Each structure stands twice: as C-alpha cells, then as structure tokens.
C-alpha cells in the first residue's frame, strides 16, 4: 500500500486560519475551495487508484497571488501540491490531507504569439492543444502531443516533460521550451530563459522541466512553435511476429529515416481498437506498425516508397498506405483510442510507461506474456516503437478482491523487466506516487540523494509536493552532511605526473 508522509497535526489544527489567509490572498468567489463536496473532484488525478481529499484547494489568478500563497506556506510550513488539469497518469497531483492543492487552471490565457521569433508565451493552464489552436491559422503548431492533449495543461507538460507520438522527430517538452516564469516556495519570482537559446549559469530550464512540481510553481511558459509540415501520410504495416515488426523499425531508422510517428501495437491491442473504432486494422497479424511521414509532398511520397520497400524486405504480410487525409486520420483513430478501447473490454485497466532499448522488444514482450500468466491478468501493448517507449495496458477488475493489488504487482514486474534490459521506469508519464517505490530498481541511495540535493536548493523544507518521486525523503541535515572518509595519500595506483 502506498505510504504518504504523515499529516502534520499542527497544520490540520490551523485549517481555519489558513483558509482565512488564503481568502485574503485570493478574494475572488470560488478562489478558495473548502467544502467536502467541492473538494471531491480534486481527490485524484488521472491515476484514479489513489485518492485523498485535499485540505483545501486554492485557485490563484495571477503570479502575485501565487507568490503570496507560497510565501505564506513557506513561513507557516504548510505543504503544497501543485495541480494543472489533473490528467497526469502517475499521481503527481495526488493531494495530501494537510496540504493546499494549488490549481493553476485560472491561468488560461495565451499572452503573446511572437511570429518572428516563432515563440508562444502562454499561461500554464492553457491546454497543450490550445497552443496549437492559437497559432494554426498561420500554419504553425506546438509539436509535443501527449494523447491527453485536448485536456492536459502546458504547465503539467512542463512538470512531467511530456512526450507524445511525434517525439522521435520533434523531441519532448524539454526540447521545445524556451523560457519559464516560476515562483519558488519562498515566494520569489524567477524568470528563466526567454526567446533566445541560451541562459547564464546552470541549465535551470532543463532541470525544472520534468521536476514534477517539486521545485516551484510555473506561472508562465514560452515554447517554440513550428511550421506545420506541408503534408503527412501514413502506412499501416502488419507482421507475423513482434520480432519482424521490431526489425522493420530498426531498418527504417538505420536507413536514416526518422518518421514523424512510429507506433506499434500487439495483437490484443489491435483487436480491441479495431472492435472499437473500425479503423480497418488487419486482425490476423501479431504486430501492426503505424508509420507517419511528414514534410513537403515530394519528400513524403519518396519516403513512403522507401519505407514500403523496407517493410517488404522485413516480411510485412500486410501493407496499406493512406491515400487521403481522412484515411490517415482513420489509421490514427485506432491508435489514439487504444486506451478507451481497452476500457471497453475490461472493467479497469492500468497503463504502464517503461522505455526499453528497441532491440530488446521481442524479449520484453515474451517476458510480459510469462508475467501475464503468472499474475493471471491480460495485457495489451501499444508502443512508441521509434523511441522504445512501451505502454502495456494491464486489464483487471477492481471489484474483484485482490485484483488491483495483482495488477500493481504485474505492473511493477513489467517495469523491473524494463530496467533489467537497460531501460527505465518512465518514458513520459513521470514517477509521481505510482512508480516512486520502484526508484531503487534504477537508482542507488547516493543517486537519489544527489537528486534530492537539487531539490534542496529550491525547497529546503520539502514543502513542495512531498511524497512524490522519492521513496524516502532524506532530511536536509543528512543530505548536507559530508561523510568522513579515510584520509590518506591513498590512491597510490593512480598515475600522477
């Protein structure tokens, strides 16, 4: 069972005072939520297995209010849980009984589109797709496209360093952010980066992106926007084995082709999505590749031919090329609806998020089948094949006693398998609370202490999003202690000149 830091009784005892202080800072109606019924929608994020009512929820409207709230929390040692749209899949916005949940969803304005610098300046509550909507009339878009893009906020994307189906070619959030305004727990407003490419000092932009709300609260985001490719076409390629499919992916990339999208599904995922959206997927193949090529028409047509030839060499038993935009979107509709499709055939499902070296795919899929039998639960796989990011969907029924626990164990075993073959626990969903206790599979105590030392530079009292990412929090004292060692003229073996 998930263990979270014990609520601080002093904080709970002061709840009334805290509410009054928050109302003073955020006077707008509905700006401070205290009633249980209204707190209920905030009790979880996209990881619904874990729930906790927040102490209160505050919805600030401007940076000054965020700074005042955090300063108050810092002075009074009150814990804070930052929250965007609440679509996160790792429980990064899971509330705490003694913490203020700060919802950033009133920060919903696009502040500036700087066409000449190809940059958009937006508030963190703007949705991912909202950025593209704001710039598409001039033929631009924002590249990272997590599947929740219609709902997820750009602030949340920063927190999780979100990816998407186009990240192989266009990068993750971290490769597309130019600048941030962030408020520290002390209430200080930092401006990092801008519209240029360089910053002085350490790469704070790089470390804040993907820091899961542990370092500060982002109040403004500058991202680069790209010109939309002239055209895009997709191929559906079917194979008799995941080895053959994986081999085709390797050959495409080895040939110097980096497709805009390169997705793979296994037989259970193909069947579930085809039954759901009728995208015309073949039901007699073991692996289905969806390859999208984008760019000028002449380039796309040329590469479609090349990829088609590679697929034939790799033993593709099914091949279909989109001949219209409608058909391309139809190809995608299956992949994009994979999660709800699984939701139709199973009362509950759990989406995992490991990344592996691509060459180990077949081995990992086989291992997963063994685990599936051992845990007595079904699993379907969708896979960002180009960058090795797996999304196994474990099917279970939470109403059957013990099934949730079994699903969790199955999931943990899958992630351990990913790490074993040289992969990682999370490719794009983040650690949050979901994978927190698996961190030691990848990291030593010293590895994690160094990460925590970065946190310490921003939040010495560990008030920001406690209980997330790190399985155990080492106190400030322990982290700062320098371990005594055997002093000596010791390293006699090292060449010296």
């Amino acid at each position: 069972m998930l263990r979270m830091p014990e609520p601080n009784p002093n904080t709970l005892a002061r709840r009334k005072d805290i509410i009054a202080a928050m109302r003073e800072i955020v006077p707008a109606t509905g700006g401070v939520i205290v009633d249980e019924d209204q707190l209920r929608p905030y009790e979880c994020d996209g990881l619904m297995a874990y729930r906790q009512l927040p102490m209160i929820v505050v919805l600030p409207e401007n940076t000054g209010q965020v700074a005042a709230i955090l300063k108050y929390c810092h002075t009074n040692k009150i814990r804070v849980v930052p929250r965007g749209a609440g679509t996160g899949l790792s429980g990064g916005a899971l509330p705490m009984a003694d913490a203020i949940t700060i919802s950033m969803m009133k920060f919903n304005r696009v502040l500036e589109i700087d066409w000449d610098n190809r940059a958009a300046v937006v508030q963190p509550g703007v949705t991912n797709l909202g950025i593209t909507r704001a710039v598409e009339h001039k033929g631009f878009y924002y590249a990272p496209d997590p599947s929740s893009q219609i709902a997820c906020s750009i602030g949340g994307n920063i927190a999780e360093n979100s990816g998407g189906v186009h990240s192989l070619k266009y990068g993750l959030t971290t490769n597309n952010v130019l600048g941030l305004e962030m408020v520290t727990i002390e209430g200080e407003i930092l401006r990092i980066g801008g519209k240029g490419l360089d910053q002085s000092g350490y790469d704070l932009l790089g470390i804040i992106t993907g820091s899961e709300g542990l370092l500060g609260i982002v109040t403004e985001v500058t991202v680069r926007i790209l010109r939309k490719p002239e055209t895009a076409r997709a191929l559906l390629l079917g194979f008799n084995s995941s080895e053959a499919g994986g081999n085709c992916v390797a050959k495409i990339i080895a040939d110097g082709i980096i497709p805009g999208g390169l997705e793979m599904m296994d037989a259970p995922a193909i069947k579930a999505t085809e039954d759901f959206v009728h995208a015309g997927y073949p039901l007699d193949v073991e692996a289905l590749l969806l390859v999208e090529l984008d760019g000028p028409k002449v380039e796309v047509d040329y590469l479609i031919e090349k990829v088609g030839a590679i697929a034939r060499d790799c033993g593709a038993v099914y091949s279909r090329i989109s001949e219209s935009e409608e058909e391309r979107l139809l190809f995608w509709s299956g992949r994009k609806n994979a999660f709800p499709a699984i939701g139709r055939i199973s009362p509950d499902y759990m989406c995992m998020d490991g990344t592996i070296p691509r060459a180990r795919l077949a081995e990992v899929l086989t291992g997963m089948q063994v685990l599936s039998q051992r845990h007595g639960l079904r699993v379907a796989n969708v896979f960002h094949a180009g960058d090795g990011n797996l999304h196994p969907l474990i099917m279970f029924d939470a109403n059957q006693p013990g099934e949730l626990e079994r699903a969790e164990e199955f999931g943990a075993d899958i992630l351990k398998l990913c790490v074993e073959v040289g992969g990682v626990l999370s490719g794009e969903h983040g650690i949050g609370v979901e994978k927190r206790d698996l961190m030691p599979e990848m990291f030593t105590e010293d590895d994690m202490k160094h990460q925590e030392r970065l946190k310490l530079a921003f939040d010495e009292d560990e008030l920001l999003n406690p209980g997330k990412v790190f399985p155990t929090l080492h106190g400030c004292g322990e982290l700062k202690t320098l371990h005594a060692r055997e002093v000596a003229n010791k390293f006699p073996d090292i060449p010296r000149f």
Partner: protein
Amino acid sequence: MTEVISPTTPEQLRDAIGWAVDAKKPLEVIGSGSKRAYGHAVAAYHVLDLSKLTGVLFYEPEELVLSVRAGTSLAEIQAILREKNQQFHFETGNFPALLADDVAQNAGTIGGLIATNLSGPRRIKVGAARDHLLGFEAVSGRGEDFKSGGRVMKNVTGFDLSKLMSGSFGTLGVMHTITMKVMPCDEKARTVLIACNDPERAGMAMNRAMGSENEVSAAAWVAVEDVARFGIDVASAMGTGLVALRVEGPAPSVAWRCEALRKLLAEFGASEELHTTNSATFWKAVADVAPYGGSSGMLWRVSGPPASGGVLAAKLAARTGGKVMMDWAGAQIWLRLDGSDVMAGTVRQIAQSESGQAVLVRAPADLRAEVPVFHPEDPALARINRKIRDNFDPVGILNPGRMHLNITEGGQV
C-alpha cells in the same frame, strides 16, 4: 607548478576526488585541456586530468546510442560515427581552434564537450549538446558516485540531471561515463546563398526562411570579407555578404525546398546554391567560426532572440567597430574585436537591450581575471545556482571560480 592526477578507471576517479574532499584541495578538472582558456582560470595546484579515462563502452547504430568514457577524444568518436554514416546532430565545430592557433581538428574530449554544452549551426533545429545527452555517471564534489538518465531516447525517471551537468564546467561533478544519442547523416544537404550586405536585412531574410515550411536546418549570415576566407569559389564569386540557408533530407525534397526558398527570398537579392561538398565546407566553416579562429583578437558570443539578431549585429558592429557573423538564424552573433579594449560594458549593454546576453569567448588571461566571462546571472537565479553548487560540492574543490569571477557571499558576482 602543478601536480597532475590522471585516473584511468571510475574507481580511481572516485578515490582522487575523495582524497581532494578530505584534504580540502581544489582541483582543476580537464579533459584534454583544449578549452582551458575558455572561462576563468582555476586556481588549483592539482589538476584532475580525465584524458586517460577513455574507451567506447558500446555503440549501437540501429539504436542511435553511443556510450563512452568521458576522456575519449572527439576525433576518435567522430571517426567511429562516420564509419556508420552517423553524427552528433548538434554539429559542434572545432571550438578549441577559437582559443589557440594550430589546433588539431576535433580537438577535445566528449566530457569537455558536454561540460561546456557546445553546439553548432543545427542547434536551431535539433538543440544543443544537452538535448542529446541521454545519461551519465559521475563523481560529485562530495566524492560520491551518482548517475542520471540512461541509454534510452525517452526518459522522465527522476530529475533530469543530464541537463544540470551539461554546461556546468565540471563544477558539480566529474563525469566518467557519457551516453549520447546519435543520428544518421542526411541523404542530401544543399545550401541556398542569398546576396546581402546588410545584417539587418539578413536578419529579415533568415526570419522569413525560418517561418516557412522548408525545414531550414541552419541559417547564417557572413560578411563579404569573411566569405573570402571560406575558400568556396561559388560563394566568393557573388562578391557580397551572404545569407546562407541549409536544407537537409532526401534528395528530391532538398531540391524542392531549395527552389522554394529561392522563390520565397527572391526580393532580398541574387541567389546561388551550394551542393554537397561545398555545402559541407561552408557549414564546417560556420561551425568552426573559421574567419575568427586563432589566438589573435578578442571574441564575444552574443545570443538573444533570433528576430533581434540583425539589429543586434548591426548595433554591435557600429558601436564597437568589430566584425560580426550571425548563426542560429540570428540567435547567435560572433563579434571579433581587434583592438585592446574588450568593451564589456558596451557589448553587454547592447546585448541586454535586445534581451540577449554576451559571453567573452576569447581574451587574454589578464583580462579574463577582471571581466566576467559569462553573462552575469540574475541575482535570484544566482542564489539558486550557488545553492546547487554548494550542495554538490560543499567544500568547493571542483573547478572553483571557473564560471564566476570573485564569488562573494550570497552568490553575487
């Protein structure tokens, strides 16, 4: 005089740093030492030399991944990549040749490259070195092993310390193992040249190109007297300053996009096209900042929003009397000063007036002892940076003073 410590294994590296922590002996950390004149001088009797900690751990071209010991030379790595027709996509030039005369090609080590976060013309499309570092293993200034990242393309497991280490000049930890993303070389590359003497107008031309759907992978402006030093007849024959726009990809696409760019920018001036070899020569010269290489004259690197590049370049040239060259579609300007005045106040004031910043890349040692090499940090950010450094290197043994001149209480510079 100095004493050089040259570990050959990660264990020896840990022992060496552990000793320095306990004995409170500052270390100057170097790879091959090729960029030692970049940044501030480190006052340390002991030099920690990583150039013996070498070797390729694995290279899997189909997985686009390469893992090496940090002291491995760039020349060796690039030769290995070339065999498989692959490259570091961020296209760093021969930076050490900006600091001294007669520097060998691909001087320096991979560790030094990451520690200084270098990147070349393709940065506008694919990012800097930091965007291609998948993971590392290091020993911190506490004498403890730590690692972050991994060998896979997509990874959000824990804080992204790879970004923290990139460009940290060895002040937080000493990396011994580095795992990089590598990319295939494009099938074809061509460059469109447009005659343009005026940097402001050049800035406008680059903006228009970058705002088009032609996926320009590099955009630079070179003044007429510098074009002559590129040694490319087609370019020299134009007899003007040049806006250069590179497109890369499959052959038919490259031809089509070159054509589209020439049409799009017709009003800016006459145009020419550089094919494979000339195009490669041209961008190698831009990446190396070849016209401003060597040891003579001072060199500033000014960076800001790309659309301000033309204005910035024009102002810098006019106010300092120096020579300018633009890269990164205007987001990076090289300014060479031939006099003895470093003009730090003027250069930084002009940079800041356009939300930019200025780094003094090359200057005599005595000047670098007086003028901050790196653009002064915002005080609030400087405090955070100081805390990070203190947490990773509490005794202050790793390259003390390399990034900052006279650090005082509170991290103020």
